[in-house]
């Protein structure tokens, strides 16, 4: 496996981990019960994600990392709908997709 491929894989893992961590943090503000447990798990996953991201930046350019990281927006929107039962309307999905395309265009020239 090439260094770039390895870096890309690390950033994809980071994007998914961030999705999971954000859902746990949102759970912590939704429920008074086990609030600190949700926060602790969320922080733990975020710390692991930050360490992996730091490692990934040694293998790929920050611009490319930025584009791939923005996959977390799609993951977070999907997880918010399924795990948090948020009302994700078509308008919100359009917004997320436009942002994803926009980030891709900006970072392609970074």
């Amino acid at each position, binding site marked *: 496996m090439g260094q770039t491929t390895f870096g890309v894989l690390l950033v994809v893992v980071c994007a998914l981990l961030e999705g999971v961590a954000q859902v746990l943090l949102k759970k912590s503000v939704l429920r008074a019960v086990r609030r600190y447990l949700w926060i602790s798990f969320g922080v733990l996953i975020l710390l692991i994600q*930050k360490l992996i991201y730091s490692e990934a930046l*040694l293998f790929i350019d920050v611009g490319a990392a930025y584009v791939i990281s923005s996959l977390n927006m799609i993951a977070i929107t999907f997880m918010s709908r399924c795990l948090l039962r948020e009302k994700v309307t078509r308008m919100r999905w359009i*917004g997320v997709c436009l942002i994803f395309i926009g980030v891709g265009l900006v970072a392609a020239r970074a």
Partner: protein
Amino acid sequence: MRKNFPTRLAAGLLVAILLDTVLQIVWKSAVLSLPSDGSPWLNLQAILHNPRFLFLILLMAWQFFNWLMVLGDADLSYAQPLTSLSYVSVFCLSVFYFKEAADLIRIAGILFVLAGVWFISQTDHITHSKEREA
């Protein structure tokens, strides 16, 4: 459609975007200052002795508590995409402060991000518990 947008949420989102902008810049410069052939242990030692990483940790802590406040006032699927406005702030910073070229592709990207943020801002910022249970 959007109504009664809380000032505290607007302030929280603004701080989140500003902190994200600064974090991205400081993080990259801090990572580049690490020894290129260092082992994880040497990197950890370098991190603990590098003031940029300590500043980074302070910024992350501030970002974290601000983010919890934002999540208390808004849906995750609403607040998180809005923080992508940091792409716009980084772009403006690079063009107006660092005098980098602003080509058409990047400008188109920024317009896409702004359009996306506009679409999301037109939705309700929070799902009420009754809707959540439905």
